[in-house]
């Protein structure tokens, strides 16, 4: 199980979701991915994408215009 990071700053939704999706596709069940975005829409969209596709958001925060969401990869 490994931890990865993804820089999705300055991208507007749904691009952060697409980048998250494409990165998660390369990872294994149990890996974690920390995504940093500047579009607050990601606070809704990434968790929604996770619920649909069987992944889990383990933390999310918003500070100084940056949104950080950590996703745990579910079963493929």
């Amino acid at each position: 199980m490994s931890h990865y990071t993804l820089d999705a700053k300055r991208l507007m939704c749904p691009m952060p979701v697409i980048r998250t999706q494409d990165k998660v596709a390369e990872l294994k069940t149990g890996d974690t991915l920390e995504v940093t975005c500047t579009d607050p829409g990601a606070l809704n969209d990434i968790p929604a994408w996770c619920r649909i596709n069987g992944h889990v958001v383990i933390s999310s925060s918003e500070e100084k215009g940056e949104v950080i969401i950590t996703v745990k990869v579910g079963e493929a």
Partner: protein
Amino acid sequence: MATTQRKAVALISGGLDSLLAAKAVMEQGVHVEGINFYTGFCVEGHTHAIRKKDKAKPKRNNALWVAEQLGIKLHIVDIIEEYKDVVINPSHGYGQHMNPCLDCKGFMVKKAHEWIQENNFDFIITGEVIGQRPMSQRKDTMPVIARESGAGDLLVRPLCAQHLPATLPEQEGWLDREQMFDFSGRTRKPQMALAESYGFEDYAQPAGGCCFLTDEKYSKKISDLWESRGVRDYELDDIMLLKVGRHIRPKKHFKIIIGREEGENNFLSGYRKMFASLKTTSHAGPLALLDSVNGELSDEDIQLAAQITARYSQGRTADKVEVEFTNKQGVSKLIEVTPMAPSKLDEAWHV
């Protein structure tokens, strides 16, 4: 022995029709997943994130919302680059504005067809309804989309299937035609009744189309961009910026993009390395980007742009307003201007 469960991919725009079409096929025991194409022009996403006043009501992505209602996976595909050719050179031309709907639908179905081949799915579902949209959803254009996309009889439109020739899934008995529909025309009533029978509420009902290209003002801004640059082309940043701020072109070779509120100012400030910018310093005011065709701006141009920017600041009635000009390299200088009188601001400059 149980027969193999058939698999279909549904084009999900986020609107009601694609929601119902996917549901109708799921009801027949088919495994359905959704696919959503991001062209850069989609109404879904960003604009609401840009404008601060909308922040109180969190914006949902309707394609994701639809997938969640249906309990299906959603694959979002970035087609920004390939889509340029659809917008710039549509073989079937444009609709009322810059919307190349027929080419667009054909292109999306073609991508979905490639996707089902790669992922071993059996057929494709769209929410098209005969007569619903003037350009792409007509009886005579339905076969055009099926043919030009290469999907042929693997393309199923459950909402109007009974008006169309039987597709392969119907011939093979994977789908029962009688359990699909015969909707046609612009009326939304049958869709609303079906939504109710399925128990869907709170679905999105976009007025125009699924994208900004059906918007008159947005389309004008694209034409202006192409005309002033002398080439029909764009980058993602260009089309994002067309959604933000006031666009004023006082001279053919440059335009000013002025933030209308804090959310837009913040968004525009992210572009300060790509464009020269102006910001009033003596009074509160907007951030303005200067988009010049060849990257050149004379002192006279900057002066003019500063007067216009000052006109949208708190100092609009002041004699003098101080404005900071910053070039792309980040070098700033202060200039003092008299805000432009509203009567001098030519209506024709507004893009």
